C-alpha cells in the first residue's frame, strides 16, 4: 500500500502546497535522485476517469536478429560464389549495394563484425556479461569464411567497405613504404580497442566508426567530418578505412593469408602482359620478382642476423612504452576517472565538482569498492599495454624480417592479406578461362 498524505480539500490548497514545495525545493542540496516521495496522494476520481496505462513498446524481435545472421551467412556464401566461381564484378557490386542498403541503412550499421570484436573482448573481461549468440556469429562467420574464400566479407558484405567501394574514383598508387607503414595502424587500433573493451571502458571502434553517422543520418560534427573526410580521401586512395584503420581487417588479413581458395587475377595462367598492373585501387597486386636476389647473400644474411638479434630488444622496449601508455589510457575509464577525482578532491583543489562526483555523493555509495575497481582497471591497463606493446614490437620485427627475405615470384598475383576480392583486376586480364576438363 502506498503511503497516503493528508487529503487536501481543494485544488487551491493543493496549489499553495506545491508553491511552498517549490520554494523549499529551490534551496540547494536537495537530493534529486531519490525521487520516490509520494508528496501528493493519488486522487479518488468521481467522474469515472480511468488513468491511461504506460505503454512499453517491445524491442526488436529475436527472430529478426537470427534473420540478420542468416542474411550475413547467405551474403558471405554469395560473395564467395561471385568472386571465385562466377568471377563477376557486376554481381559483386550488386551484392555490395544490397548489403550497404541492408546492413548499413536498414540495420543502421549495428551490430557489425568489426564492432563485435569488442563484445567478445568484454565477455572475457567481465564475467557478468554474456555475449548474445547472434553477436558471436557476427564475429566468427566472416573470419571462418576468410579461411575458405579470402576477404570476400570485405568485398561485398561489410557496409563500411561498401560505402568506400562505391566512391573509388581516381585511385592513386601509394609508395610501398607509406602503404606498409600505414598498414600497421590497424594492429595498434585493434590492441587498444580490445584493451578498452575488455575493461568495459569504451567501445572505441563503435564510437569512432566514421560511416555509421551516414547510416543513421546523424552524427556528432567531428565524426561527420571524419567520415566525410575519409570518403573524399577514398576518391583518390582506395578504401582508406579498410586498409589503414579497420581492426577487423587486420584479423582478416591473417585469415585470408591462410585461405584455402583465393581469387586469382587470371582465370588461366599468367602471360605477364602487365595489363593488370594498375588495375588494383588498393595496391594489393604483387608484381613478379626476379629469380636472383639483387644483393650478395652474405649481406642479406648479416641483415637478417641483426634483425633477429634486435627483435627481443625491440619487443622489450615496445612493452615498456606500452605499459607507460596503458597507465595513461586508463584515465579514460569512468571508475578510474571518478576515483582520481575523488582522491584529488580530498586535497581540495578548488575545481568545480563534476556531475559524476555529485551523482556519486548523491548515491551515498562507499568509496572503497570504487577505489578497488579503479585499481584493478589501472593494473589491467598497464599489463595489457605492456602485452600489446610487446606484441606490436614482435610484429614490427617480423614485418622487417619478412620484407628482408627475398622471395622470387613469376606471376602477377593478389596479395592475399590485402586483397579484398573486389574483382576489378579480372577485367584487366586478357586470358580466357581454360576450358573445363
Amino acid at each position, binding site marked *: 500500500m502506498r503511503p497516503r498524505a493528508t487529503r487536501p480539500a*481543494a*485544488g487551491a490548497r*493543493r*496549489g499553495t502546497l*506545491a*508553491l511552498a514545495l517549490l520554494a523549499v*525545493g529551490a534551496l540547494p542540496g536537495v537530493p534529486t*535522485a531519490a*525521487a*520516490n*516521495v*509520494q*508528496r*501528493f*496522494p493519488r*486522487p479518488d*476520481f*468521481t*467522474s469515472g*476517469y480511468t*488513468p*491511461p*496505462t*504506460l505503454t*512499453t*513498446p*517491445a*524491442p*526488436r524481435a*529475436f527472430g529478426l536478429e537470427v534473420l540478420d545472421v542468416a542474411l550475413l551467412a547467405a551474403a558471405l556464401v554469395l560473395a564467395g560464389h561471385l568472386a571465385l566461381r562466377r568471377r563477376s564484378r557486376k554481381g559483386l557490386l550488386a551484392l555490395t549495394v544490397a548489403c550497404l542498403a541492408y546492413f548499413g541503412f536498414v540495420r543502421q550499421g*549495428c551490430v557489425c563484425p568489426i564492432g563485435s570484436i569488442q563484445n*567478445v573482448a568484454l*565477455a*572475457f573481461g567481465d564475467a557478468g556479461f*554474456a555475449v*548474445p*549468440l547472434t553477436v*558471436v556469429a557476427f*564475429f*566468427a562467420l566472416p573470419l*571462418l569464411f576468410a579461411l575458405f574464400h579470402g576477404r570476400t566479407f570485405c568485398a561485398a558484405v561489410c557496409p563500411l567497405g561498401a560505402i568506400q567501394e562505391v566512391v573509388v574514383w581516381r585511385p592513386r598508387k601509394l609508395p610501398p613504404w607509406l602503404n606498409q607503414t600505414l598498414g600497421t595502424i590497424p594492429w595498434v587500433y585493434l590492441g587498444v580497442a580490445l584493451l578498452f573493451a575488455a575493461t568495459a571502458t*569504451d*567501445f572505441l571502434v*563503435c*564510437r569512432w566508426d566514421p560511416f555509421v553517422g551516414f547510416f543513421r543520418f*546523424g*552524427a556528432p560534427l567531428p565524426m561527420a567530418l571524419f567520415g566525410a573526410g575519409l570518403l573524399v580521401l577514398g576518391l583518390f586512395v582506395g578504401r582508406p578505412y579498410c586498409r589503414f584503420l579497420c581492426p577487423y581487417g587486420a584479423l582478416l588479413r*591473417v*585469415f585470408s593469408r*591462410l585461405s*584455402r581458395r583465393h581469387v586469382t587475377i587470371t582465370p588461366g595462367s599468367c602471360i605477364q602482359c602487365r595489363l593488370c598492373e594498375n588495375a588494383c585501387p588498393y595496391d594489393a597486386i604483387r608484381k613478379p620478382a626476379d629469380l636472383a636476389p639483387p644483393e650478395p647473400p652474405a649481406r642479406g644474411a648479416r641483415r637478417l642476423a641483426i634483425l633477429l638479434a634486435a627483435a627481443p630488444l625491440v619487443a622489450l622496449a615496445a612493452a615498456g612504452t606500452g605499459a607507460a601508455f596503458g597507465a595513461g589510457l586508463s584515465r579514460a575509464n*569512468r571508475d578510474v576517472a571518478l576515483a582520481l577525482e575523488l582522491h584529488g578532491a580530498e586535497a581540495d583543489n578548488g575545481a568545480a565538482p563534476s*556531475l559524476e562526483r*555529485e*551523482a556519486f555523493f548523491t*548515491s551515498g555509495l562507499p568509496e572503497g569498492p570504487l577505489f578497488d575497481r579503479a585499481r584493478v582497471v589501472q593494473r589491467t591497463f598497464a599489463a595489457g599495454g605492456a602485452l600489446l606493446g610487446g606484441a606490436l614490437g614482435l610484429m614490427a620485427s617480423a614485418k622487417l624480417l619478412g620484407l628482408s627475405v627475398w*622471395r*622470387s*615470384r*613469376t606471376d602477377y598475383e593478389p596479395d592475399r592479406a590485402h586483397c579484398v576480392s573486389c574483382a576489378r583486376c579480372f577485367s584487366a586480364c586478357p586470358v580466357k578461362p581454360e576450358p573445363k576438363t
Partner: protein
Amino acid sequence: MSSGNSTGSPPGPLPRRAFLRLGLAGLAAAAVGGVAAAAARAGERRTHVWQLDPGKCVQCGRCETACVLTPSAVKAVHAYDLCGYCRLCGGYHHPQARSIDSAAENQLCPTGAIRRTFVEDPFFEYTIVEDRCIGCAVCVKGCAMFGNGSLFLQVRHDRCVNCNDCAIARVCPADAFRRVPVDAPYLLKGDAR
C-alpha cells in the same frame, strides 16, 4: 609462384607450403571457434537491450544530447498511478509561472511535449507527446523535486537502435544505464514495476 592448389598439380603428398597453410588454417579456425565458444559460455544467452534505472537517474540532461539518434531514443514517460494530478505541476509548470494554466510561457517543457487535460476539479492529467519529447529530463527533474516523481525517463525500444555500446551509458554520470534482458526491457516506476 603458383600455389599448390592449382588444378594442374600432380596428385601425391601435399607440397610443404600447402601443408603448412592447411595446418595454420586449421589452427586459426580452432582459435576462432574456441574464442567464440568461450565468449558464448554458459550464462545468460538472451539478447540484451539498454535501459536506464530511474532510481539512479539524476536528470543531468545528457540523455538528450548523447544518444546517437536525434531526437534521443530516451523519452519521458508517466507512471499515472504515482501522479497526484496536481493543478500546479512541478514537471509541467515553470517555477516562475505567472499563472497556473497551459499558456506556453508557463510551461517548463522546451518543446511543449506535455499535454495537460482537465479531468475533474481539481485534477489535471499530464500526458507525454512522445514525438515531441527530446528526453531532456527537465520535467523529470521538476517532478522529482516538487512532485511525486511520476515522470521519469526510459529508453523507448521502438526507437532505440540498441547500439553495441550505448552512447548515453558511456557518459551517464549516475551509471544508471545497464543491459537488461530483452524480455524485461523496461525499468518502471509505480504499479507497473
